[in-house]
């Protein structure tokens, strides 16, 4: 048969034979869902149950911080601000003084933070932790900048480490 004799408008019959059973199956699925309790959580009245590793807010344990700046360097958004100064402690036994960095300012701007968690991952001395708290919206952009004290306060909400798998 020549090409131009073929009726190109005729769509090939590829539709599978329908028995109508699929339609009933679909109806049973929706009915089953209607009879099950819905999964909606009525948020302001009802707190959502969040998994323990939820990335809500980052807490700072100041005592563990050595001011290595790793977190602020790795932060993709540059939202961690760290100021520190050096102090020299004279050992009681005499000899050369040991210099240490002391944290003056540690702040995270949650208006910039994208909750990637790289700072928590990269911290070599376990000074940063994820907390599942999330209710810290503000009406002013500037108030999203959490200073050291506020970041310390979040520490109370950090859940204990999950059990290791055996």
């Amino acid at each position: 048969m020549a090409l131009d004799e073929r009726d190109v408008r005729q769509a090939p019959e590829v539709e599978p034979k329908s028995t109508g059973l699929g339609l009933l199956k679909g109806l049973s699925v929706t009915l089953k869902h209607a009879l099950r309790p819905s999964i909606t959580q009525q948020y302001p009245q009802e707190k959502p149950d969040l998994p323990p590793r939820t990335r809500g807010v980052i807490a700072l344990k100041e005592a563990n911080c050595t001011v290595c700046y790793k977190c602020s360097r790795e932060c993709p958004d540059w939202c961690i601000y760290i100021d520190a100064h050096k102090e020299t402690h004279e050992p009681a036994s005499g000899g050369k003084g040991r210099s240490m960095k002391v944290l003056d300012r540690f702040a995270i701007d949650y208006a910039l933070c994208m909750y990637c968690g790289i700072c928590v991952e990269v911290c070599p001395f376990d000074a940063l932790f994820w907390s599942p708290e999330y209710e810290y919206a503000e009406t002013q952009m500037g108030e999203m900048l959490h200073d050291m004290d506020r970041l310390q306060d979040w520490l109370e909400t950090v859940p204990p480490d999950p059990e290791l798998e055996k």
Partner: protein
Amino acid sequence: MIAQSGVSFVNQWFDQYWLVLITKAAIVLIFFLVAPLGVGYAEHKVLAHMQARLGPMYAGRFHGWAQLLADGVKFVQKEDVIPAAADRWVFSLAPAVWLVPYIALFVVIPFSDEIFILNLDVGIFFVMAITSVTVIGVLMAGWASANKFSLIGALRAAAQLIAYELPLVLGAAAIVMQAGTLSMIGIVEAQQQYWFAISQPIGLGIFLVASLAELSRPPFDMPVADSEIVFGAFTEYTGLKFAFYLLAEYGGIVALAAVASVLFLGGYLPLPAMEFIPEPLWMFAKIGALSFLIIWLRATFPRLREDQLQRVSWLVLIPLALLQIMVVGVLKVAI
């Protein structure tokens, strides 16, 4: 006053012509404004639960029962925008043309052998005639909007209603042949022995599918397919006029569910051994059950393609409906 069956309850209350007329009009209007709210609320809730959601929960405090009232108030507050290029008069008249037929349809729906407005001798004929008027309203809306989405939607609606009017009428015709009357009450009374759903189950299926298409309800919602043509013929409508579209949609569900229950489910007739439940409640229960089915189908099936839609009607429903009429005719003559 002694209740007389076969006489409308309004005629039993009053004697003056105008009083009767005004009361009847008021009853129809109030029913038309209230019943769609019930179905609309049911759609919110049923659809939500079928999708594992809760649906409206705040309006009116208890499970969002006042959601549709709140929606109504919102629609009234909206600005009534008429596009600059639109044909103002046709654009503004269209909502009335697609709304009024559904109001008029309730005139012939019986809720018992004395709770009805009019017992027209040509009841079902009137229903079929008046439902086809809505498409003119949709065409007017689509044409007058000066918007290509509206026009495509209106033409789709017209093609769809022409295709599905036929199985709807043929399905009803088979019932009329079996009942031997066009009157809605007559058809109900003819089902004293058994519901016509038992003798004509295929007819019931045809009628329900055709009603869905007639109402442009999913899975036959191509005229308003929001993922393709915004909102079809109603794209340019805002505020109260848009609310009229929604009212007509839900009013249409109630209307066609009521017609289907009269034709196939014995209307206000109770099930055997359950006569203690009053007749109007049976009618409401049947309308409710069919409305639930319509919502259920919406939650389950995706939209058909335009050509599939036409194929279903012309190649499946209409031949089946013609076959049904033939069988009923043969049996009617033979028995």
